[in-house]
């Protein structure tokens, strides 16, 4: 527990109604979307940068851990306060401050929900491409902190590719501003890149300026069905090789489609080993040209059927099916471990084969889908019981999947972050010099290790 003096000071900063200490409130901020939990000592809900700066000063002077939290939907244990202390809930900082239609930028507070931001900029004919499938719950701050991606990553990249400027409160309570509205900016170190994906360990992001692009005029969706999963995977690299970059290039295996159909049927076949859901966007003429080429490549790569969605409603239906994949899996398991090992695009067929092999070896159901256009796989391990023997097999399978991804020149995490969940693999991916540099940066920025301690490479620290 924190002493009364500190609670009184927190109350002075944010007001009584924004400091929560009841056990009920603490429980609600003890978890995220992983099975991990730990109780904080207090939850505070600030509404402006100055309050956050004051809280950080107080916390730093008293060596109290602080964990920033957005929607609490991360899949790596990132917002769980493993060392207790303060959870800083950012839901009150939910204003879109400006949409600048001259410079095609928008500035927002970190607590804005991603989908609300999409809607607001699209009203102005602008487009913010990053589309984590959690966009209706996740916040912009959480997206930057996890460097979230989504299906549109193939063509448009991920969150960090859109951040032009940041306001960040440092662990000792100073307000840092980097970047701005300019597209080009090479003054000083690129701290934006450093903060993007920092998982709440380097600073509290309090304001974000995003680069936007014009909303594409048209888009069309294709569903290609394959009798052999391997053919579907090879088609991914085939399309990229033809210098076509679709907006999305999603692979689903048979088990995934089977589960979707038993949950929210949209007409996926049950007997195809694999399917690709492909969307292209751009000007109307360009879209029509690309869709023909995509159709052609799929056919010559062994697709048994290629369906072009006739209209927006049909396309929406297919995407609704894809979006319900996670739900469909969740209904069929006690726990779904959604991994996000990522490989270079040319290695997609190899990692798909590896995942199948590992699933068979450990007798696990691992429906696999992925934003395969960027090599980002989502093998979803369905855990059926709390049985120790099963959990051992699950652990071993996850180890082997990561090992396989790294051997193929890939990475542990394409978008979910390391948090607590993937810590033990960090020294598989990085040598000690690389990890030491990360430690040095953390030490320089947060000498007392109060900001989200114990995460990423800071196992037990």
């Amino acid at each position, binding site marked *: 527990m924190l002493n009364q003096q500190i609670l009184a000071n927190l109350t002075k900063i944010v007001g009584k109604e924004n400091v929560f200490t*009841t*056990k*009920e*409130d603490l*429980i*609600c*901020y003890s*978890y*995220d*979307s*992983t*099975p991990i939990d730990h109780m904080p000592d207090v939850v505070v*809900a600030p509404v402006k940068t100055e309050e956050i700066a004051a809280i950080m000063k107080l916390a730093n002077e008293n060596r109290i851990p602080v964990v920033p939290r957005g*929607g*609490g*939907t991360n899949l790596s244990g990132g917002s769980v306060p493993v060392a207790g202390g303060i959870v800083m*809930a950012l*839901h*009150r900082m*939910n204003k879109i401050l400006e949409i600048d239609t001259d410079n095609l930028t928008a500035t927002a507070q970190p*607590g804005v929900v991603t*989908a609300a931001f999409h809607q607001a900029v699209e009203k102005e004919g602008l487009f913010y491409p990053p589309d984590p499938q*959690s966009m*209706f*719950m996740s916040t912009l701050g959480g997206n930057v902190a996890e460097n979230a991606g989504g299906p549109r990553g193939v063509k448009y990249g991920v969150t960090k590719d859109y951040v032009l400027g940041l306001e960040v409160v440092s662990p000792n309570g100073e307000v840092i501003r980097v970047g701005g509205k300019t597209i080009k900016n090479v003054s000083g170190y690129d701290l934006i890149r450093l903060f993007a994906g920092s998982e709440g360990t380097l600073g509290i992001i309090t304001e974000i300026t995003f680069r936007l692009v014009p909303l594409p005029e048209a888009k069309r969706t294709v569903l290609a069905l394959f009798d052999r999963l391997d053919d579907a995977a090879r088609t991914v690299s085939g399309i990229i090789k033809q210098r076509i970059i679709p907006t999305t290039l999603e692979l689903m295996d048979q088990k995934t489609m089977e589960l979707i159909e038993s949950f929210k049927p949209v007409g996926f076949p049950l007997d195809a080993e694999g399917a690709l859901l492909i969307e292209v966007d751009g000007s109307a003429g360009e879209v029509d040209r690309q869709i023909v080429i995509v159709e052609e490549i799929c056919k010559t790569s062994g697709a048994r059927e290629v369906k072009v969605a006739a209209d927006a409603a049909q396309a929406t239906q297919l995407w609704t099916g894809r979006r319900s994949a*996670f*739900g*469909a*899996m*969740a*209904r069929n398991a006690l*726990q*779904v471990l959604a991994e996000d090992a990522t490989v270079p695009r040319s290695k997609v067929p190899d990692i798909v084969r590896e995942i199948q092999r590992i699933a068979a070896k450990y007798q696990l159901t691992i429906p696999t889908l992925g934003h395969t256009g960027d090599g980002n796989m989502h093998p979803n391990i369905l855990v059926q019981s709390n049985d120790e023997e099963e959990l051992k097999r699950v652990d071993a399978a996850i180890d082997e999947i990561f090992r396989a991804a790294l051997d193929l020149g890939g990475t542990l995490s394409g978008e979910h972050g390391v948090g607590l969940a993937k810590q033990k693999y960090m020294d598989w991916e990085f040598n000690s010099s690389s990890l030491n540099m990360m430690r040095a940066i953390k030490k320089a920025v947060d000498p007392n290790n109060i900001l989200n301690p114990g995460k990423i490479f800071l196992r037990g620290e």
Partner: protein
Amino acid sequence: MTEPLDKYLDETERCIRCGLCQKVCPIYAEMGSEPFVARGKVRLIRELIKGNVELSPRLKEILALCLDCGACVANCPPSVHTDKLVLEARAKITAEHGLPLPLAGALHGFLPNNSAQALVTKMAYFYQHSGFQKLLRGTGLLKALPLDLDKKEGLMPEFAPRTFRSMLGELPLKKDGKIRVAYFLSCMTNMVKPELGQAVIKVLENHGCEVVIPAGVQCCGTPHLAYGDTKVAAQLAENNARLLLETGADYIISDCATCGAALKKYDKLVPGLEGFADKVRDIAEFLVNVVNLRAGEKPVDGVVTYHEPCHLGRGQGVTAAPREILKAIPGLTFAEMEDADRCCGGAGTFNVMHYDLSMKILDRKLDSIRKVNPQMVATGCPACTMQLEHGLSRREMPISVVHPVELLARTY
């Protein structure tokens, strides 16, 4: 471990914490903080069952802020029944701590008591039509009363001069028909909208039904369940079911989404009522799916949109039928609004107990309505009707609220 709530531990543990409920929970949309979304409530109820938290004032406060709208359940991958969990937890609160006092009076004395309803209706009518109401509003006397009655008083429906029940003896009900239906008289039709009762009878008779109305039915029991008073709810259910079954009707019809949803669950509340629920139909469901919907020829002009009551759409799975009725009416243009199935924030007495929050939820509904720019909003739930009427007049939007069946009745 014999507590009734304990058997729901497994249900709470099915939550995988994905957070998808954040997208749809209307309370969370306003509060933004974790305790108020389904994920938080489920977790707290789990800890309550496990004995890690108590029935503290904070827990009660959190559990009070749930509309029982079911949006979370419909959007939840493993379909965790948060609405049910909250009601069960409230039942535990009521069992151990009793009802809040003013509510106890209403739930025990007023709602189950038909003669009390008649009396209150008369009083309310007098109050609203005698000028006394204006006086109260004008002097600011209401402000002095607890629960900021000055604002909420606008929520009070325009009561009818006479209850529908008191007119039953004089109604010329047809004595023959292909199908015999028992019409369940809801509190709201009885006290506030007798004209809806008349429309229901007219429409049913136009579809060749013989309508019987057991006068002795009481409140459906939903308010009692909402505040955790399972015992009285079960007594009401038993009595109502007996009276409805005694009519020998083929179907039991409700014009109130909430009552219909409650009737369909009577078999879970009272042992020995197996098969009862199979006879219950919402009026729209009955017209479209059982007897072939047939509209008359008189046109009804204007644009209508539809607000889907939680207890009809998600609660009973009736979504297409009311819209089909509206589309079948000659002259009428039906326009779907955005988020038609989002809760209006009425939720029984929620709007009275949590007025400001309820109005914020309602404002989003009114914004959706405004975009469609209709002359009428149709909805199949009297509680939603009251809430919408209150909001529309608060924002001075000249739009009327009707039951789809009332519009249908105008075509004959």
